[in-house]
C-alpha cells in the first residue's frame, strides 16, 4: 500500500496584525500558532479523520496539505514530491492530483455561474481534453453524483438547488479531474440532517470507484467514527492522539480524547453518560500554554505537564498519544 501523503514537522504561524500604537510600543511580533509542528502520514486508499474543536488547526492543516496556504516550515511529500517546495506552473499542474471539498457549498459556488460550467471550468483550467470532451465529462460527472438526468441540472444556477444538491456539485467539481487525494473539510456540516448520510455514502462510493484517499476534517466524532479508518485528534495546533479508529475511539489514551468522547450527545435516551468535563474552553493559539497545551484544563495534570511538552509516542501498536499520564 504505502503512504500517499507524508507530512513532517509541519508548522504554520499566522502573524497577528497589530495596531499602529502597539507597533510603536513593542517590537515583538506575535503569531497565531495555528499548526505547530505536526507529523502524520496517510496510507493510499485510507480515510484519515482529522478531529478537533474550532481553533484546533484542523482546517489549516487541510489547506496546507494542498498548499492552499503556504507553510511556515516543514515538508509535505505527496507521492515522493515535496509540494512545500513546488511553485507556479508546476504546483498548478500538480494540483490535478489533489482536490478539496469545502464546508459551505453555497460559498464554494459562484452564484452567477451555472453548475455545469462550474464543473467544466476545472477541466479547462487544467487543460484536459477538447471542449466537447469536457462537456461530455461534465455531464457524466453530474449523473455520477446523483444529479440525473444531467439536462435538469447542467444549466441551473446554485440558488436553484437544495443544499444537498449543491454539495453534490462541489463533489463533482472536485472529482472531475480524477484526483488521487481529496481533502474534505466538514463536507456535511451545512447539509440537512436527513440527507447527510446520503452525501457520506456518495463520498464512500466515489472513493472506491476513483481509488481515492481522503483527509476528512470534522468536529463530529460520531461522524468520524462512521466514515474513517484512522483518526488524528488535534488540540491547539498539535496532534495529541492518533491511530486506527477502533483504538482511538475504543481505547482512548489522551485525556482530551476522553473528554471529547464523553461530551458527545448520544441519540439514545437510555445511554448512561459519564462525563469527564475539562475546565473552561480552548485557550487562544496566540500564546498557547507551556508544556502540554491541554494541561490547564486537564483533570489529570501534574507539575511536569506545565514544564515539558509531551511527544507523540507509540503506546500501543499503531496507536500514538502525546501525554505523560496516558489513560492506559
Amino acid at each position, binding site marked *: 500500500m504505502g503512504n500517499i501523503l507524508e507530512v513532517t514537522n509541519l508548522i504554520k504561524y499566522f502573524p497577528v496584525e497589530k495596531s499602529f500604537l502597539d507597533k510603536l510600543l513593542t517590537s515583538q511580533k506575535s503569531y497565531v500558532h495555528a499548526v505547530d509542528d505536526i507529523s502524520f502520514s496517510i496510507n493510499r486508499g485510507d480515510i484519515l479523520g482529522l478531529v478537533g*474543536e*474550532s481553533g484546533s488547526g484542523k482546517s489549516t492543516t487541510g489547506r496546507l496539505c494542498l498548499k492552499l496556504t503556504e507553510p511556515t516550515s516543514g515538508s509535505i511529500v505527496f507521492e515522493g514530491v515535496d509540494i512545500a517546495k513546488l511553485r507556479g506552473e508546476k504546483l498548478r499542474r500538480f494540483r490535478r492530483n489533489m482536490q478539496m471539498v469545502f464546508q459551505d457549498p453555497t460559498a464554494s459556488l459562484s452564484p452567477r455561474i451555472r453548475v455545469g460550467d462550474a464543473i467544466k471550468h476545472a477541466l479547462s483550467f487544467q487543460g484536459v481534453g477538447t471542449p466537447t470532451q469536457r462537456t461530455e465529462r461534465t455531464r457524466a460527472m453530474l449523473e455520477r453524483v446523483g444529479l440525473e438526468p444531467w439536462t435538469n441540472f447542467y444549466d441551473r444556477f446554485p440558488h436553484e438547488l*437544495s*443544499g*444537498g*444538491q449543491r454539495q453534490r456539485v462541489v463533489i463533482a467539481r472536485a472529482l472531475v479531474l480524477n484526483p488521487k487525494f481529496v481533502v474534505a473539510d466538514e463536507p456535511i456540516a451545512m447539509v*440537512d*440532517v*436527513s*440527507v*447527510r*448520510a*446520503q452525501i*457520506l*455514502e456518495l463520498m464512500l462510493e466515489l472513493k472506491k470507484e476513483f481509488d481515492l484517499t481522503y483527509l476528512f476534517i470534522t*468536529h*463530529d*466524532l*460520531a*461522524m468520524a*467514527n*462512521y466514515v474513517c479508518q484512522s483518526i488524528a485528534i488535534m488540540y491547539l495546533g498539535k496532534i495529541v492522539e492518533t491511530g486506527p479508529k477502533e483504538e482511538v*475511539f475504543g481505547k482512548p489514551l489522551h485525556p482530551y480524547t476522553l*473528554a*471529547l*468522547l*464523553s*461530551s*458527545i*450527545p*448520544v*441519540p*439514545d*435516551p*437510555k*445511554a448512561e*453518560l459519564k*462525563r469527564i*468535563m*475539562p475546565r473552561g*474552553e*480552548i485557550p487562544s493559539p496566540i500564546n498557547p500554554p507551556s508544556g502540554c497545551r491541554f494541561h490547564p484544563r486537564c483533570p489529570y495534570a501534574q507539575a511536569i505537564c506545565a514544564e515539558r511538552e509531551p511527544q507523540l509516542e507509540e503506546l500501543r501498536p499503531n496507536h500514538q498519544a502525546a501525554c505523560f499520564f496516558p489513560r492506559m
Partner: protein
Amino acid sequence: MPLLDIQSLVVEYHTVRANVKAVDRVSLSMEKGRTLGLVGESGCGKSTLGLSTVRLVPPPGKIVRGHITLDGIDVVNCPDEEIRRVRGKRVGYIFQDPMTSLNPVKKIGDHFVEIIQTHEPEVTEEDALKRGKDMLERLGILPERIGDFPHQFSGGMRQRVMIGLALVLGPDLLIADEPTTSLDVIVEAQIIELLKELKESLGLTLILITHNIGIVAETADRVAVMYAGRIAELGETYSLFEKPLHPYTQALLNSVPNITKKGQVLSWIPGAPPDLAEPPVGCLYHPRCAYAFDRCKKEEPLLLRHDDSEVACHLYDKR
C-alpha cells in the same frame, strides 16, 4: 392545568410569491416542570413555533389562527402591554447565536440593568447589578466580569450570559432555540449540563428547540417531531426513541450516527423537504416516504392518538 397550551396554531409568512404556512395547525400542551424537545430539520417551523409563544414572530410572519394560553394569559389576543410583561418575566428566551444576541457596545452589566429595569422600574441600578452578579456566579462566571464587554467573553461564556439574562427575572418557562449549535462539543456538553441543573434547581419548564437528536435524547421528557410546519409525532422520549411511529421519525433517527453502536448502517431520506410555497397535496411527507400509499397522496393525515403517542400518519389511522 398545563402551563402552556397551544391549540390549532397557524402562523403564515406573507410573501409576494405565496402565503407560506410555517406552522400549520399545531396543538400541544406542556405541564409545569417538564422538558419538551422540539426537533426537525431547518425550515420545519420549530423556531417560528417557539417565537409564537411570546408573539415575537418577525414580519411578514403572522399568527393567523389558533390559541396560545400561557398560565391563563391569552398570548395571541392580549394587549401589547401584557405581552411585554410575559416576555422576560414569565418566559425566558435563549437564541442560537450568543454573539448577535448581545449588544457589542454595552457591558454585560448594562444588559442586566436594562432587562431588570424594563420590567421592574423601581429597582435601582445598584440592586440590578447585584442581581446580575449573583446570576453570573450561579452560572460559573466570576461576578467581577459584569463590567466586561461581550467580545471579552468566549462563545461558551457568552451563551452562559445569555442564559443568565433569560433567567434573571425568574421566568417559569425557558425556551432555548438551538442554544449550543454554534459551540464546540465540550462547551456544548457544559451548557447542556448547566441547563439540566438549572431546570432542576429552579423548577423551570423547558422547551428545547434543536436539530440535534442526541441532545433531545439526553434532556427531554417529551419530544415533538416537526416536518414542514406540522407535528408529525409527539410522544414521551423513551417510547419515541424505542418505537418511533411516523416514517419520518424512524428515518430521522436512523440517519444519526451513534458512536456507542458498532456496525451501524446509516440511512437517509431521499429528496429534500418540500417548498412550503407550493406544498404537495396530501401528507406533506409522502414524496419522500417509503411507505406512502394512495391515501397519502390525497388526504392529509391528522395528528391522532396511538398507544401513548400522537402521530400524523395514515398507517396508524384505521378509520
